[in-house]
């Protein structure tokens, strides 16, 4: 049986047009690659903070959420 999982990205557009992003259930570099695709034509990811789960390379079996935040455009 295949386990269906969801890859979730939250993209926040701030009042000044800058973005804050947070990804859930995506491990490693993939979350940054996916966000780059979603923000193509809008923003370049120029700074990001890796959470502990970023380094979790297991494909399945982890209940911990991956939360990798990306910041851009001088937002904090």
């Amino acid at each position: 049986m295949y386990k269906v999982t969801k890859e979730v990205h939250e993209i926040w557009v701030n009042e000044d047009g800058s973005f804050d992003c947070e990804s859930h259930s995506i491990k490693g570099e993939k979350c940054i690659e996916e966000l780059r695709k979603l923000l193509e034509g809008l923003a370049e990811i120029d700074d990001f903070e890796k959470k502990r789960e970023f380094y979790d390379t297991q494909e399945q079996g982890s209940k911990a959420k991956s939360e990798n935040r990306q910041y851009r455009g001088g937002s904090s």
Partner: protein
Amino acid sequence: MSYRWRQETAPMTSLLVLQRALDQCGFQIIEAPAIMKHLALARKRVSHASTTHDKIAAYEELIDLIRQIDQTDSLPKSIKLDGVKLSLSNSFCYVAEGYSSNESTVAEMAAKSKITELNNVYKEIAAGLESELTQAMSSLESQLREALIKAVKAEQESYKKSITVARQEIFKIIRENAKKEGYSLKRHVFTAGKNAGREQYVVVKRV
């Protein structure tokens, strides 16, 4: 020998605010759309006008220019400044580019520092539009007050419109990108609470 350096600016949606910020930071505009030069001149006329009549006329001229900008509604693709070129990239950010000598990074550091100043001043001007209106309302001379309030309101509305247009464009681009990458999309617009003024996009893919 020289090399090219690049630095992205903060998001910028309004030509009016950008022109004011460039002026306030002391950038010399070498090449830009004529409307930017007209704006700079109109603002100078306002500050140099010595009589109430001249000041009112100068405000009216400024308001006309703001309305023209609202109709065209676009940021210039490129602005050539003294030693730096700003090129529009990613819809709402500029990339500042310049050349530096291999022997010294002083000029590059100075230019990058001015771009950081431009980012900060742009944000300050945008944030200060509300208080400008309060100040305008307390002006003493009634005819002048009326003209000043009209000018500040026109500027405020133009800025707000630029934000609305930018957000529509952001929504369009994120929706297209999400569709292309096989994500579903939900958009939440917050008008109250701690996230008032922000928008949230939740994009989900089942794997």
